[in-house]
């Protein structure tokens, strides 16, 4: 087992599934890059290099570059999935869902239900999300609550390289449409990742810390920050359970409720804008199902309800930080 980056873990997963299953194809803008240009083939391997090396190994028939035409190729991926392929399509930035959302939520996400259970749509849409890259309002959003809202879609938020590989292989093998969200700030994070293929089931939360006082539910990149906050507070005698739900759809509500029952206090860390996000969703769940267990009001750590700003000082103030998470945890401990 070697240390691998988040980027390499995802590349590994796709590559191993392409080797294992000839129906797996990859498509997206510059997934190889340089097609029929005078310079290098596989010039980019994706805008941040995640699919680098796949085209030389599998050829242009299975690693398809696309025009900048998200409606057409995301729709094509949906159509291909319904007719025998297992496409992994890259929507470069999740912010671009605006130009192709119909193909995801009205087409791919509804085929099975509209067609009376007779359609199988094994589509993976990979997409980059999140703030912290100084990429400003149109390249920094989270938006996963929107996908989570749509019945028929599964939504995955891997929080580390190990998680990313296992969840990606699961996504490719899954027969339902999956939105796989990669946090752009995490691509160079490294940890031990098995060389072998492995899958992590959807809908099973991971407990990255176990404690008695506070349950912290965090998503994607926020899991690492929540762990750091929990470790820092441990030294002050506050022990936290950190729950990484891994997937927002399906959502492991059982584990969240069990942890809240055990600790009686809940902090939810969600990088998505604060109205109708995962934090509000889980707050409602806990208010409904575990109200009696609460010793303190639920605290949500989310950005303000603004677009993501550009200036580094503003963006840093926007993103939930370890310090804000610690403050929220101390806040619920005060009750």
């Amino acid at each position, binding site marked *: *087992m070697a240390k691998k980056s988040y980027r390499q873990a995802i590349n590994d997963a796709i590559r191993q599934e392409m080797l294992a299953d000839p129906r797996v194809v990859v498509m997206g803008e510059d997934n190889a890059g340089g097609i029929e240009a005078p310079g290098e083939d596989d010039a980019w391997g994706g805008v941040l290099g995640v699919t680098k090396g796949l085209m030389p190994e599998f050829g242009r028939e299975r690693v398809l570059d696309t025009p900048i035409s998200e409606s057409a190729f995301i729709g094509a991926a949906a159509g291909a999935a319904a007719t025998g392929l297992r496409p992994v399509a890259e929507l470069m930035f999740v912010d671009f869902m605006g130009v192709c959302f119909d193909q995801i939520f009205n087409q791919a996400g509804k085929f099975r239900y509209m067609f009376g259970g007779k359609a199988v749509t094994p589509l993976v849409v990979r997409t980059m999300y999140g703030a912290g890259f100084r990429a400003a309002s149109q390249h920094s959003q989270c938006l996963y609550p929107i996908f989570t809202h749509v019945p028929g879609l599964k939504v995955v938020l891997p929080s580390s390289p*190990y998680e990313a590989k*296992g969840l990606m292989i699961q996504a490719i093998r899954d027969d339902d449409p999956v939105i796989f969200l990669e946090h752009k700030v995490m691509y160079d994070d490294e940890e031990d990742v*098995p060389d*072998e*293929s*492995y*899958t*992590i*089931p959807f809908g*099973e939360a*991971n*407990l990255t810390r*176990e404690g008695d006082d506070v349950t912290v539910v965090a998503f994607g990149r926020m899991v690492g920050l929540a762990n750091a906050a929990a470790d820092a507070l*441990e030294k002050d005698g506050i022990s936290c359970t950190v729950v990484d739900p891994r997937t927002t759809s399906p959502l492991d509500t059982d*584990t969240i409720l069990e942890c809240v029952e055990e600790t009686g206090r809940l902090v939810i860390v969600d990088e998505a804008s604060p109205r109708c996000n995962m934090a509000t969703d889980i707050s409602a769940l806990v208010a409904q199902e575990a109200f009696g267990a609460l010793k303190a009001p639920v605290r949500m750590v989310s950005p303000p309800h603004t677009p993501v700003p550009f200036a580094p000082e503003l963006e840093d103030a926007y993103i939930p930080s370890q310090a804000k998470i610690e403050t929220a945890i101390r806040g619920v401990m005060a009750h």
Partner: protein
Amino acid sequence: MMGRIEPIVMPKWGLAMTEGTVVGWEAGEGDRVDQGQDILEIETTKITNVFEAPAGGTLRRQVVHEGDTVPVGALLGVLADDEVSDEEIDSFVSGFVVEADDGEAAGEGAPEPRKAEAGGRTLRYLEMGAGEGTPVLLVHGFGADLNAWMFVQPTLAEGRRTVALDLPGHGGSQKDVGAGTPESMADTLSAFMDEVGLERAHVVAHSLGGAVALALASAKPDRVSGLTLIAPAGLGDEINHEFITGFIEAGRRKEMKPVLGLLVADPSLVSRDMIEDVLKAKRIDGAEEALRTVAAANFAGGRQAVLLRDALAGLSCPVEIAWGEADRILPASHAEGLPEAVRVRRMADVGHMPHMEAAGEVTRLILAGLE
């Protein structure tokens, strides 16, 4: 006794351990302790275990206290003769420098698992130590891997070569287990010994690995200089069917936790990380199928299919057996009625994992068997 002042430092149990938490001291300041006596309990993310006094003497100082978390190599306490002054102890404590964990810092020195081809399969193994001492081969049980020996292997490695491997289908080894019987795995084991240049070794084996070791010693007596078998399979037909099927079926943390609890006398020892490590191993493609094949070949219908009492009786090498009285997987009664030459150690309040639950005692037993 020793060089007047003997530090007690945070041990490194397993490759992944970087720090540990003191659960509590079992010896108080001023108490006389013997070498090997349990003096404090340490919790890592993997497991909680008792730490034994590295030497005899008086426990003069507890440097870290209950609940403190410190890095590997940090000073936990001080043992010294009574004539050493408090001032000397103070200056020893204040002058103590934590040695860099060379495995972390330099990336060399700390052993890393390697791969070998044996019997047409790729097997993962971890080698530690060198020297003139009898080499030791460590063989884990059903569903485990070479990390099972994390508390035992470092000590055994002082003065001898030790090799712990992952059986076929387990850990980082290839998932094809072939027939999955003790005999077929013993064939793989001897091919592995050829490959890593272990002509003859003392084999330490646990549970299913015990049956494999017995099959090996029986088929290739010249390869085995002695056996230490820990709760070995093959000495009776009972086995906890609930454990075997539960271990295979459990895909989720919540399902796996009670299953792993069956392994040890005190289920609270089962940590979040231990569960996660087991699940990680099981998630690898082919791992579950491999376990099913092995279980079907050895424990079909909840009974042990392969009985090796005769094989044991026919061995000429020395054999020691350790068994926890509280074993809920293979009953300790299987240690009864064995040939007289076989030395049996039954351990009170220990479950199916003596090499983890009572690592010090098991290590001493192995070392005694090597002499």
